[in-house]
């Protein structure tokens, strides 16, 4: 037959290609192990008390410094923090810490996973300072940490701290840069699993001027959002704010600050195209003509910067201050809120946040928050966890807590993010240059 040979050839070729492609298996050169690293909660200094809102009574916890590396269940939703830092296995839920000096001040922060870089914009090292920097090495090997200190005088040589395995160290702020009124810190571990927490407590003689826990910010960026700044009135007078800002590079930053409030967005007078000197911690007074409320700041810069806002507060007849720090863009995550009932503040052009609130009686309530500029939501008293199911893009969040002891802020960011660890495979090729 004339076409027999071509047909046979085509048949063989087709069969080869079809069978080959059908039998071909996908090959992956890398496997991953996904987990949420345990988070570290700060120690409770003497004379203070702190409570950690945990997501479940079965949340594993262990106290730093003990030999055992086993996690034990907390058996409570509100863990009273001991004098040593605590490591919590909260999985994908974020646990906030509420720390108070009864009747003197209050502050909030998040239990967080170890970080390779933390920035703190807040605190002082002058005569009023009673602040402390707490550095924790939750690893089982020794750690070396560089503490870089900026002030109104510029940058100081970094202080190198060595921490033994499974230990922590407390540094008084006034010992880091004595006399400085404005400081900003960068904690950069060379080795070890390091967490740092900053307490800014101030007093003049025996008179307390309040205190707060300064939350850590991420690395300097050209755009910063401080999502929740409480704007209050005392004795019929609105209380002013101070924007502390640092451009840690070598070149001055040109900044522009936009204020988002319930009355709209605007750039306060003097905050457009303003120069911030490089390497100098700069403070700018911010006195917006607003009714008592909450506002957010969006700072744009041509150079990477870090910033936060110092705000005096007056709530439940108690004067205090709060450091509102920057937050990264919100993503869906879960927050434990047992015993806190915070006021959630969302900032963004078009806000759409879907919440699922689980109460202590295990009832779940879904809430959708929509708005523009800035939106607030008060978490119910009996809430146990708040699950941010859906978050619109370019939305930033913060939480404000007011108690009799004082006022506190923490950013709405996860304390521990899902970590994808590459699983190693044997391959002699690693020894081939």
């Amino acid at each position: 037959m004339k076409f027999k040979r071509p047909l046979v050839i085509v048949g063989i070729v087709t069969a080869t290609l079809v069978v080959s492609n059908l039998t071909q298996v996908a090959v992956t050169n890398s496997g991953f192990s996904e987990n949420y690293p345990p988070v570290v909660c700060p120690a409770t200094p003497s004379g203070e008390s702190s409570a950690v809102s945990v997501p479940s009574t079965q949340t594993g916890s262990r106290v730093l410094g003990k030999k055992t590396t086993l996690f034990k269940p907390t058996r409570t939703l509100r863990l009273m923090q001991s004098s040593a830092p605590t490591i919590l296995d909260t999985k994908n839920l974020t646990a906030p810490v509420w720390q108070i000096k009864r009747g003197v001040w209050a502050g909030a922060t998040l239990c967080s996973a170890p970080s390779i870089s933390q920035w703190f914009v807040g605190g002082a090292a002058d005569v009023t300072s009673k602040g402390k920097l707490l550095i924790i090495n939750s690893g089982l090997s020794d750690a070396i940490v560089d503490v870089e200190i900026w002030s109104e005088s510029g940058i100081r040589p970094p202080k190198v701290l060595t921490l033994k395995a499974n230990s922590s160290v407390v540094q008084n702020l006034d010992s880091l840069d004595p006399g400085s009124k404005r400081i900003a810190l960068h904690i950069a571990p060379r080795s070890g699993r390091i967490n740092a927490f900053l307490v800014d407590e101030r007093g003049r003689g025996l008179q307390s001027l309040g205190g707060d826990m300064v939350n850590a910010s991420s690395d300097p960026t050209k755009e910063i959002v401080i999502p929740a700044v409480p704007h209050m009135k005392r004795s019929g007078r609105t209380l002013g704010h101070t924007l502390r800002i640092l451009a840690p590079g070598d070149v001055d930053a040109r900044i522009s600050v936009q204020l988002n409030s319930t009355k709209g967005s605007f750039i306060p007078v003097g905050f457009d195209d303003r120069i911030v000197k490089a390497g100098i911690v700069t403070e700018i007074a911010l006195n917006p003509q607003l009714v008592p409320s909450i506002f957010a700041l969006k700072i744009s810069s041509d150079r990477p910067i870090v910033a936060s806002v110092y705000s005096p507060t007056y709530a439940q007849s108690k004067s205090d201050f709060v450091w509102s720090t920057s937050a990264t863009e919100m993503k869906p995550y879960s927050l434990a809120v047992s015993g806190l009932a915070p006021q959630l503040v969302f900032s963004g052009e078009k806000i759409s946040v879907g919440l699922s609130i689980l109460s202590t009686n295990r009832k779940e309530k879904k809430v959708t928050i929509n708005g523009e500029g800035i939106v607030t939501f008060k978490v119910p008293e009996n809430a146990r966890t708040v699950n941010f199911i859906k978050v619109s893009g370019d939305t930033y969040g913060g939480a404000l807590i007011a108690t009799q002891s004082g006022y506190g802020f923490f950013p709405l960011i996860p304390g521990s993010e899902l970590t994808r660890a590459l699983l190693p495979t044997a391959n002699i090729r690693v020894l081939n240059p």
Partner: protein
Amino acid sequence: MSLHRVSAILVVHDGATWLPEVVASLASQTRAIDHIVAVDTGSIDSSAKLLKGARIPVLTMPRDTGFGAAVASAVEKLPPASAGEWLWILHDDCAPDPKALVALLAAVEDRPNVVLAGPKLLGWHDRTHLLEIGISIATNGARWTGLEESEYDQGQHDGIANVLAVSTAGALIRRDVFEELGGFDQNLELFRDDVDFGWRVHAAGHSAIVVTDAIAYHAQASATERRDVDVKGALLKRPLLLDRQNAAYVLLANATWWLLPLLTVQLFGSALIRAVGYLFAKLPGYAADEILAIGSLVVKPGELLKARKDRKATRLVSARVVSDFIPSRGRQLRLAFDRAFAALRDFILKPTEQSILDESLLDLPTESELEEEDLLTPVTTRKWSSLFRKPFVVAMIFLVVLTLIWSRNRIGAVSGGTLAPSPSGARDLWEFYFSPWHQVGLGSKSASPLWIPVIALASLITLGNVSALISLFFIAAPVFLFLSSHHMVKQVSDNRFITVSAALLYAISPISISAINSGRIGIVVLLIIAPFLVVTALQWREIESFSVRKISALSLLLALTFSFAPTFFIALLILTGAALVSDFLDLRRDSNQPLFNARLFRRSVLLISPLALTIPWSLEIIRSPHKFFLDIGLISAGAGPNLAFIANPGGAGSLPWWLISPVLIVLAIALFSITQARQVATIGGALLCIGTFAATFTITGKGTSTPNYMYSGVFIALATVTAVYSAVLMLDKVRERLISTHINYRHFSVSALIVVSALYAVTSTGWIATQADNSPLQSSQGEVLPPYLAIETQSKTLVLRERLVGTTPSLNYYIARGSDVSLGDADVAPSEVPEIATAVTGLADGSGITSSKTFASYGITYIFLKAPTQGTLVQTIDGLGGFTRASSTSAGIVWKVSGATGNLILTDASGKTSLLQPTSVADEYMVTTPGVVTLTETYSGSWHLVQNGQRLTRIKSELSLPQFSVEAAGPVLLIHDGSVRRGWVSLHVIVLLVFILFAAPSGRRKREISEKELA
């Protein structure tokens, strides 16, 4: 008129063949011989009759009389010596020229110190063949003439020259000196008596000369085994044995005392080398002669001592007086090199019968004709530019330029892709090959592959510098590919444009580019060898005509190919299977059982021999058949079936998919050819389909546990070479066929083929010039281990490294033993240890609380995370207990594993572990307390721990490590018994030598060589 008196002595022994001419030449001497006597040593031919007929007085002696004894008897019978009497010694196979005697006498006339003179000896059959112009002896006993092999006599050595000695054939010796020195040494019954006599002449203060005006034609009947050697001392009547024995005797009897040890060593060494050479030439008799000759001297030292005493009695000057005549080692080496080169040239260029005897030369014009022709013919000279019109030259220049551009990042020691860095010298490779234990990973007892010693041997070219060899190989690889494929295709077609184009396309084919760029030395070697295999494979059908030698040589070539490309065996298996099926069909058709058996036997030998020639490595492959599909060197993935189908294996360094080569289209068109191209293309197409199918599978091994797509390089290489062959077969003379026919499918297919080929040539060249320098194979790739870890040769370091495979990040680890990976390491790498894999996983994901303990148990001292690092791995390791940061540099971060860890770990009764410390004695360690000693190497029955001369009991631990129970404190010796490996290597060498022996060209005994050839 000469006043000399000449007495000629003609020694005859079965010389009837040459005697008539000899007698005639003596009779025709222009200067008459004064007295002549013949000595017949028991000839059994018509020699005696011939002498009688010539009226020469004959002295008859027994058949086993030696030459010296025969001459001595003749001298005794001569009239008493007179002043100026000379003895002219003549052989029955040596015919002097009529003017020989005159010339000799004229030369000695005005040279009173000369007592020995000899003629220029020319060949008996070819009378332009220069045999001797005086002789000497080399320090290895060789007879030294100072002439080239078969040197043509053009008068280039003419004149009178002082020499050590002259042949006894035609030697003129002053009688008084001859008698004074005692004549020829009768221990030297035949051969070398001339050199010995010459040496003694010089030692007695006289001289010897060669007179080239005197000519004699010598048949060298005894030396060329034209007649039996019947002398009494000739053991087994073997001329070579007698010659070698006498050569050693001459040297040892005449040389000064202090030279004797060196001479003895030289004689024995050279005899041994020559014996080996004879064995390879399949002349065991000659090999035995060499050894027996030396042996026979050793057993008879009395004769030597007596000979030395006799010489001392007649010696007036030092024996070193002859040193000017003994060839220096340099001259000997130069001559040996020249001869070897000439032999190699003849082997490669294979002079044809036509080239040996150009008949046109027989009809040479006369001198006057030449002059006339010169006047009429205009002077023409070929321009150099004409060279550049030759396609071969143009293609070579193009390829060399392209190669230089291609290799611009490969100047220096290269590595990358599948090629590991080369060791510093060939010695390291030899050690690697012979070593029974390899310090790779946790240790490996795997057999080294054959390609290791092949590369070590080849590095002789670069004076043992392996990295230089490898670099040069990869730089020159395209040229090698071009030349080998050109060698193949020029046997198919005379069309230079087609053959050169085909060879060029082969050199830049996708598989060639891929193999070179990814450092696949095995595939490149296969690509170079494959064209030669194709030439042989064409005769595959009639394999019954293959001689044993051809089968053996082919087996060696197949084994070499197999050792460099293990997958080649699968192709060989498939092709052999197909051939056997064809043979079986022939058997059913023709019922020729003997033919079938002959083919079956030969095919089986060719299939099995590559395995036999590569044992024990091949046995390991047979035990783990997936290794047949692994290329040598580091593993590197192919790109799956679709690329393989277009003859591009894919993977790192390969051409992109859109550069489609003409291989597939050639094979497709050739399948419709009416020529032999169709058969070849069928094989090529089948191999391409197999390669396509094979490319779908994944494979692990060679120190990697990650699955990789199989690299179908071998199948694609073979398919490519068949495509090139088919294309040339098809295109040869296609022009004539196309012109003579109307436009049909052939016109279109040939056009398509040419267009695709041209397009591919241009685009692939462009790709090579612009992109290929980014390929994995590069020079100066740096080092993985920083120097402070590289010096820890006794420590194990777990190296962690993040790599990008394509765009996917991958984290890999391996255990380093104080150095980066080296050539061959991957081929012997042990398989992954599950416990270590678990511990490393724990290290990465932070769950490995006990990882450090596991590492310590396996003797891993350091963890090295190679920079650059991403993610939180550093933090994770920092957070885990059991690791202490040792350093953090730009090279990476090092953690020291806590606890006692090292090569030998002692666990005492309480469970406490400590590291055994070495003593000052090599491989000896001090055990401080009884307990269990764990060796942190892969378990092997060859590991032994010896205490007080006793081997301690060895068990396999839970971690599959060797453990030894030590009952008492004290030193222990760690031993790895390599007897098994040595046994295998010995067997391997024996098998290899047997095949080489059979494959080597057979030598012939001198008596088997025709007179014409001798001439």
